[in-house]
């Protein structure tokens, strides 16, 4: 038996990829979450602010509307350690802007066009994430 989580992962993944395909084929844009919000935050992407804002609005509103479909309460299960949350947020913000992409831009959109930058970025953030889990969960026990 294949675990249901894997099947939902595949279904959700196909939805994520279809969303990226729509954005590329209709608007000619790469669906990268950090780039879309980052361009608004540092004002480097204000020229097409309406498209960016609309994308973010859809990203927030649609899953919020889906919550009642779930019988169990949906949770992010995020840590309650605020220091860890702040450190993690800062690292994700700085890192994605330096690397010019995150899981969606480098991972989904980059790997699928065989971009060397996307593949290298993905290798490095996976390695860093795995190492962080090893050190902070199994050695230091803080997460």
């Amino acid at each position: 038996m294949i675990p249901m989580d894997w099947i939902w992962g595949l279904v959700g993944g196909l939805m994520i990829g279809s969303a990226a395909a729509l954005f590329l084929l209709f608007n000619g844009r790469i669906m990268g979450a950090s780039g879309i919000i980052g361009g608004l935050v540092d004002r480097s992407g204000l020229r097409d602010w309406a498209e960016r804002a609309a994308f973010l609005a859809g990203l927030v509103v649609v899953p919020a509307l889906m919550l009642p479909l779930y019988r169990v309460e949906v949770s992010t299960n995020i840590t309650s350690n605020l220091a860890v949350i702040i450190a993690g947020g800062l690292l994700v913000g700085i890192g994605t802007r330096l690397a010019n992409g995150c899981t969606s831009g480098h991972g989904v959109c980059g790997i699928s066009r065989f971009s060397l930058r996307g593949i290298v970025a993905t290798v490095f953030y996976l390695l860093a994430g795995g190492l962080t889990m090893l050190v902070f969960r199994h050695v230091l026990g803080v997460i």
Partner: protein
Amino acid sequence: MQRVLLAAASGGLFGAGLLVSGMTDTTKVQGWLDVFGAWDPTLAFVLGGAILPMLVAWHLTTRRAAPALGGTFPAKPDPRLGHNLVLGSVLFGAGWGLVGLCPGPAIASISWGGTGGIVFLLSMVAGMLAAPPIRQRVDRLAAA
């Protein structure tokens, strides 16, 4: 106007996919990264599923002159790697591992992520604002 509506639809489908796939649950993401603990392979199915439609989409861009709603398709990927790509990805991966959220799910889950989710998002925005001066310093160090 059509471009704005399409962007909203794409963002909505992206958010729905993140929720359905389990990527807004930090335990699923940290489970994937926890190779030396209780490893959870779900994320491989998510990434694999997401790449399939995009393989088709990138192929279609070679057969069409322009996107359906105007503009141009993205330029060919830059083959140069550079220190910022590597350093940035390492920092991003560390933050991703610490909390289990990357930018897409962090935004998608804002309506149910509670205080922790909002603090994460604000910290991420602060990091994005701090990135340009950090990039200048790194570039200066790399050039020296």
